[in-house]
């Protein structure tokens, strides 16, 4: 029998944790912390060339700026950092490898003095030939971004290829694709490319680091998603024991993966650990331009897919080649490459799969985690080519998808059987809501209207054993504090945890508070990434709350001398109806109960919970096969209704419908928020986002004027978000992740809608106004494919294909 009653439990529409402070503006983010006059400020001077040997760095003019106390150079802080592959130094040592790479760190008494000093650092370089084109970098080993690749430490599941620019090579070898192609009625070979894109979180990176000069202990306050991962990466890079590093994360202003792992903290430590500086806190707040230039981006990619289909429309085999442009570092970005690889069947059952997914170094800013983690890239290609294939074989794209759907029980490309899901139902709903197969007149006179569908899939991408743990503390006033080192960066996880605790403890959510992470107070959690928190940390939080409840009930059972099963906690009041008892949770929870035996029992009630996924096995490095490669997949679909002004290329979204099988919506307000927000972020990426460089590697889009993200004027007229709830077997409440998934498929859905509207296939993201206008012009010719690759002069899809296939 359930022993708790609450109105705020799992599945209820409740308002969010910390929203009062956020609305009032009183919540303190990292940049809002105050450290007094002892605080120093750091600013990096940055490389102006994309590839070169450092001949000299002159800091004499910088040192003359009043307030500047020190300029630190790379050879004074020789440490290599990285989550999966340690290929990154915070300051360039001997060589620069992209425009914007930090070459010196100016430390000053004020931020303004540091900024002024950084402008006065002068460096001379012997320029080397840079490489920007990921396909060239992958296939031509004459220019190496990291000649030292072999010496970099790495985890066993990342497979770099020394002597090349390949930082990781993930393979799937399942069945016999060549035989499948021979047996196929139709062969479809197509390609898609997409530039790097930026996270566009509104809070720039910021951290404050301090070293205790007596003990060497480091304290780091930082805008980080994952305090424990940050600590581990720093400890490994410095050769420090974990216990000497404390990482505190105040609330962060958006992450989207861009604040996962370790970002700017090591650069700041180069200042804070300097012998002349240590003891004083050093703050590094980077500007928007520096965020665009030198923090992670979503990797660009060039991808080709060859597909063999039988005469009934069944896909027999698929051969995937993905080049991910990981820029100058793959320390984190090597893993989305893997994630795309082990999901490279998309939402389809394909018996024969051959995949080569490569992380390719180039002399550009570096790729890393970004909402979707390899899957917007994968599905950006897959859902385009599925649509092309359907048209080529003369089958309706919806029917083609349903015919090949990865139904429960069928095997994914790693050999793992798919679990239960409601994807077929979701597709049917989306098709109906958007009227995918209904031809409709454009709403605007003279415009062309089209509709498109794209499916989504994603598993949490992570090592086999990423653990979580949580502490639930019941306080002496009947409220609860939850220590769960997940970062609530806006996705609403703290509200979800509060609802779980409310469900298990019978205490209203307004009496439950989750505390922002600190490695010194919180128990361990691997990372806030991978849409894993409500699932993995959810397991730990639920276990902790259950333990706390059992302790409370046991104490009251002894106190009242009634059977434990007769006790219920109802809206924070402990009751035993049969004994006529009803008492609040009060200071006895803290101070102990004076029991009928005359002695005190109990003491502060704490529940603890831990979780490790029990049964994940790493895919084999040669074949990608594993009985259980991932914990589960969340699947979904996006349907979109767009129209285009042929005279300008302007595109308006009339309606978008997006549905996902979330297993169970713990916090519906946040599930809706994640679907709406990610859908718009995905549309924004699909229509306007791309990072572009001049021929010397200088970023042309370093700010929100040139790198456009959706404003309120750019959103669809109607956003319909919905979800299905097919419960997950191993899960706190049947729930699966949904934070990233909404970003995966809006862009390919738009591409498919544009094909429907114009009869032109655009193979290059984003579908900018200029590009759509070109497609409109192309529709007046016999050409059908628009391909634009930033690294070649001549833009011709047929020629690009010929060079490739």
């Amino acid at each position, binding site marked *: 029998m359930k022993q708790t009653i609450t109105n705020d439990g799992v599945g209820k529409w409740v*308002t*969010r944790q*910390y*929203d*009062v*402070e*956020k*609305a*009032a*503006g*009183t*919540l*303190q*983010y990292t*940049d*809002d912390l*105050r450290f007094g006059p002892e605080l120093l400020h750091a600013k990096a001077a940055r490389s102006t060339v994309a590839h070169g040997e450092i001949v000299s760095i002159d800091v004499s003019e910088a040192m003359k700026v009043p307030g500047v106390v020190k300029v630190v150079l790379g050879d004074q802080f020789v440490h290599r950092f990285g989550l999966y592959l340690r290929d990154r130094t915070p300051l360039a040592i001997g060589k620069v490898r992209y425009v914007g790479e930090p070459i010196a760190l100016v430390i000053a008494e004020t931020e*303004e003095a540091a900024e002024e000093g950084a402008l006065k650092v002068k460096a001379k370089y012997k320029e080397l030939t840079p490489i920007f084109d990921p396909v060239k970098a992958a296939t031509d080993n004459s220019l190496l971004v990291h000649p030292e690749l072999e010496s970099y430490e790495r985890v066993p599941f990342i497979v770099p290829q020394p002597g090349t620019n390949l930082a990781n090579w993930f393979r799937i070898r399942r069945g016999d694709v060549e035989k499948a192609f021979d047996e196929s009625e139709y062969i479809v070979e197509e390609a898609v490319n997409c530039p790097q894109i930026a*996270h*566009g*979180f*509104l*809070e*720039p990176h910021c951290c404050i680091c301090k070293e205790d000069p007596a003990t060497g202990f480091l304290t780091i306050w930082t805008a980080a998603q994952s305090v424990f991962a940050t600590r581990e990466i720093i400890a490994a890079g410095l050769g420090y024991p974990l216990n000497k590093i404390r990482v505190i994360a105040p*609330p*962060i*202003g*958006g*992450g*989207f993966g861009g604040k996962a792992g370790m970002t700017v903290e090591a650069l700041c430590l180069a200042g804070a650990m300097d012998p002349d500086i240590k003891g004083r806190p050093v703050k590094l*707040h980077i*500007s*928007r331009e520096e965020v665009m230039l030198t923090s992670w981006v979503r990797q660009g990619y060039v991808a080709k897919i060859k597909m063999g289909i039988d005469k009934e429309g069944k896909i027999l085999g698929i051969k995937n080649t993905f080049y991910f442009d990981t820029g100058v570092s793959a320390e984190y970005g090597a893993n989305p490459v893997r994630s795309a690889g082990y999901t490279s069947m998309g939402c389809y059952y394909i018996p024969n799969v051959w995949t080569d997914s490569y992380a390719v170094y180039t002399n550009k800013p570096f790729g890393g985690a970004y909402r979707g983690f390899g899957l917007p890239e994968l599905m950006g290609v897959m859902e385009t080519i599925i649509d092309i294939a359907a048209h080529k074989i003369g089958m309706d794209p919806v029917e083609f998808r349903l015919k090949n759907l990865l139904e429960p029980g069928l095997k994914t490309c790693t050999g793992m059987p798919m679990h239960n899901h409601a994807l077929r139902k979701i597709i049917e709903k989306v098709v109906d809501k958007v009227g995918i197969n209904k031809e409709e007149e454009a709403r605007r006179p003279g415009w062309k209207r089209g509709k498109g569908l794209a499916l989504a899939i994603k598993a949490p991408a992570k090592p086999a054993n990423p653990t979580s743990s949580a502490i639930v503390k019941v306080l002496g006033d009947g409220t609860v504090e939850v220590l769960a080192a997940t970062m609530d*960066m*806006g*996705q*609403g996880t703290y509200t979800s945890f509060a609802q779980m605790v409310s469900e298990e403890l019978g205490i209203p959510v307004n009496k439950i508070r989750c505390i922002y992470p600190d490695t010194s107070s919180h128990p361990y959690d691997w990372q806030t990434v991978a849409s894993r928190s409500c699932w993995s940390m959810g397991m730990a939080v639920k276990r902790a709350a259950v333990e706390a409840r059992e302790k409370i009930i046991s104490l009251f059972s002894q106190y009242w001398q009634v059977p434990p099963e007769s006790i219920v906690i109802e809206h924070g009041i402990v009751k035993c109806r049969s004994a006529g008892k009803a008492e609040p949770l009060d200071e006895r929870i803290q101070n102990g109960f004076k029991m009928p035996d005359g002695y005190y029992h109990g003491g502060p009630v704490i529940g603890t919970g831990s979780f490790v996924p029990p049964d994940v096995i790493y895919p084999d490095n040669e074949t990608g096969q594993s009985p259980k490669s991932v914990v589960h997949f969340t699947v979904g679909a996006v349907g979109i209704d767009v129209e285009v002004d042929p005279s300008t290329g302007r595109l308006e979204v009339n309606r978008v419908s997006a549905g996902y099988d979330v297993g169970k919506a713990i916090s519906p*307000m*946040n599930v*809706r*928020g994640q679907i*709406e*927000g*990610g*859908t*718009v*972020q995905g549309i924004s990426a699909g229509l306007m986002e791309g990072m572009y460089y001049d021929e010397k590697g200088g970023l042309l889009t370093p*700010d*929100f*004027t040139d790198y456009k*993200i*959706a*404003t*309120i*004027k750019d*959103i669809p007229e109607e*956003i319909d978000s919905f979800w299905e709830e097919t419960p997950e077997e191993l899960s706190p409440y049947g729930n699966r992740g949904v934070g990233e998934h909404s970003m995966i498929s809006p862009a390919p859905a738009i591409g498919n809608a544009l094909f429907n509207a114009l009869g032109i296939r655009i193979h290059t993201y984003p579908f900018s106004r200029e590009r759509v206008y070109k497609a409109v012009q192309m529709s007046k010719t016999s050409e059908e494919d628009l391909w634009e690759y930033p690294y070649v002069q001549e833009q011709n899809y047929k020629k690009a294909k010929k060079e490739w296939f």
Partner: protein
Amino acid sequence: MPKQPVNVVLNGKPITLEVEPRTTLLRALREVGVTSVKRGCEEGECGTCTVLLDGKLQKSCMVLAVEAEGRKVVTSEGLLGPDGELHPVQKAFIEEGAIQCGFCTPGMVLAVVDLLSRHPDPTDEQIKEGLSGNLCRCTGYASIIRAVHKAAAMLKERS
């Protein structure tokens, strides 16, 4: 660089800021602990540092502190009632789930206050025009539009 005093009325209270000539109003406000004005870009693009300057919307990174001499500055903390009660716009944002990371929220809330002072019963088009200077990367804006309509109704009820 030498500092000079600038007198402003901040959220109804007179205050003197000590600033360099180059200091922006954004940095000057943050210096005295008003950290609801956020540094999202410091180049006038994102709107997270929005304030009301003499009743008009202003990105505080785009004016020098010295230009605020003798003027009234309102930030989102200034919308709170004497006992900390939230302004209806702030309440509506919470009830509609129009907040995620919260970094754009203080500026966005002020933009809504300004919008509703000009259009007490705004259309979606007026909302989009009025909030087009404030970026939000999290919500997709749909919930913000719902919150504006709700706030409009709440304000109407109050008056």
